[in-house]
């Protein structure tokens, strides 16, 4: 498969390199200031379908170009580079700031804090540009937070695709991922498969 990168590509099967999307914990992806709740999940696709806009864009609210995107991973990953495809007419984001492994970021803290890395983006409608990370800092990423403060002049920021290149380790940062408290035991929550009918006196 011929790749459309403008730079030298050592492997011609680029799709496998941009496969970190498989390690994204998609149900827990969320964004602040998105116009349609849940549209943030649509931007993470395979490399082949990066130009496919059938699911729509991740749009920010009208008259506010800021977007904050939380990307949790199922295991710790190392991120080598990022590719962002926006939309035409100035809707593409112009700057990107990345934070790692934080839970408490909203727009005001994101504006004040120094990001782990910051990029100036170009309008990249074909997905030919990739933005390298300072790899040493992106070695064990459990949650990637991307903040897009501005765009190229339109009212809202539209993002069509975000691609992540890197590798996944099998380690997990948090020991306990998800806890549910029970005030009272509820058998409905603990339904075992049918084998539970077998007596356990053995």
């Amino acid at each position: 498969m011929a790749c459309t990168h403008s730079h030298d590509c050592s492997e011609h099967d680029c799709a496998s390199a941009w496969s970190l999307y498989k390690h994204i914990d998609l149900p827990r992806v969320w964004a602040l200031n998105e116009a349609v709740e849940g549209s943030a999940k649509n931007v993470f696709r395979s490399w082949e379908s990066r130009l496919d806009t059938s699911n729509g864009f991740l749009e920010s609210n009208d008259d506010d170009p800021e977007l904050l995107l939380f990307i949790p991973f199922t295991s710790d990953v190392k991120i080598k580079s990022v590719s962002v495809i926006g939309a035409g007419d100035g809707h593409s984001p112009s700057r990107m700031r990345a934070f790692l492994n934080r839970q408490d970021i909203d727009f005001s803290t994101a504006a004040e804090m120094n990001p782990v890395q910051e990029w100036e983006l170009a309008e990249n409608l074909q997905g030919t540009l990739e933005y390298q990370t300072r790899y040493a800092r992106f070695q064990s990423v459990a949650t990637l937070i991307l903040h897009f403060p501005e765009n190229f002049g339109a009212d809202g920021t539209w993002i069509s695709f975000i691609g992540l290149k890197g590798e996944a380790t099998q380690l997990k940062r948090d020991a306990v991922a998800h806890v549910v408290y029970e005030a009272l035991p509820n058998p409905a929550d603990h339904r075992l498969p049918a084998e539970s009918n077998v007596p356990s006196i053995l």
Partner: protein
Amino acid sequence: MVLEATMICIDNSEWMRNGDYVPNRFQSQADAVHLICGAKTQSNPESTVGVLTMAGKGVRVLVTPTTDLGKIFSCMHGVEVGGSADITAAVQVAQLALKHRQNKNQRQRVIVFAGSPITADKALLEVVGKKLKKNSVSLDIVSFGEEDDGKAEKLGAFLAAVNSNDSSHLLHVPAGSTVLSDALLSSPIFTGDGEGGSGFAASAAAGAAAAAAAAGGASGFEFGVDPNLDPELALALRVSMEEERARQEANAKRAAEAASASDSQNAQTRSAADVSMSEAAGVDSSAGVGQDFMDDENTLLKQALAMSMSDGAGHTGGDATMAETSGEDQDLAFALQISMQEAAASASGGTSEMNKVLHDQHFVSSILSSLPGVDPNDPSVRDVLASLQSENEQKPEEKKDKETDSSQ
């Protein structure tokens, strides 16, 4: 079971001294706050609730978001009423308090009790609302108390600016019979929480419904029983009401069929009145007493009319009485209509519709002119038409006389 951190903004301004909510506005607001706190912590054990006051010397946070209900209740005790509420500042402080919540996985929600007039202008409210929406904070507004013009509009604009995906609500509780807490129980502010919230709401409704039934007030449910709480009882009540209604109608029909002459008409009207009276007694005792008096009057009137009607073919008179009574008691009218129709059929042998048609002057003259050999200007034809018309006029006049007689 949404994991949520909630900040409740209480209005403790001077307007809360008013007693149009029982016992006074501030107390009913405090009860509502207790209800909300209980529901939130019960729906999810990790949800937190905090409280701040909007008026007084300024916006003051009483309790930061916590799961400890005792702390919240004890803080509510010492709140003093005074000053005027600043909604925009309060909402911004609430947002700040939520930002510094301990568990960042919790969703953020602000509940505002807007009881005093709103001094902030709409544009400022919308800016604050947009900021809330941008930071994904939901907002519930409980509008009660003062109702100056523009308040509803401003709150509506505020809600529209904040609302994303229907997670924010605006509830308007007018002064009067409803208690603030009861109105909240049935609103999306509670039921929007999901199963956990409505479970709490149902159990609280049990207490509320019991109290309401004892006081004789309306709890908002049919028959005074919460269908959620006691479905079998509610069903049994509904079924028995239907059966009673069917039985009354069957009685009325049977009574109507038994009629053949004008004196039995009187018996019919009396029995129809009895039927309606007993049904009225079954529905509501206080209203039934009033209806009994009206029914007695009606029966006298009907007797007089029935006697005049048995003379001629004045069925329009019967129809006019129908219109009269239908305003008072539908079932009585229904029973009477059946009896009248039977009487009309037996009295003249013609249908009432034919006579109605004959009374329409234009229609009659057009038909007559189309008939061969009949000249509408013929004096004999004219006489007949005139007599028909005068009968029409006579009936309403007679009826009016009888009415004034019986009403005196």
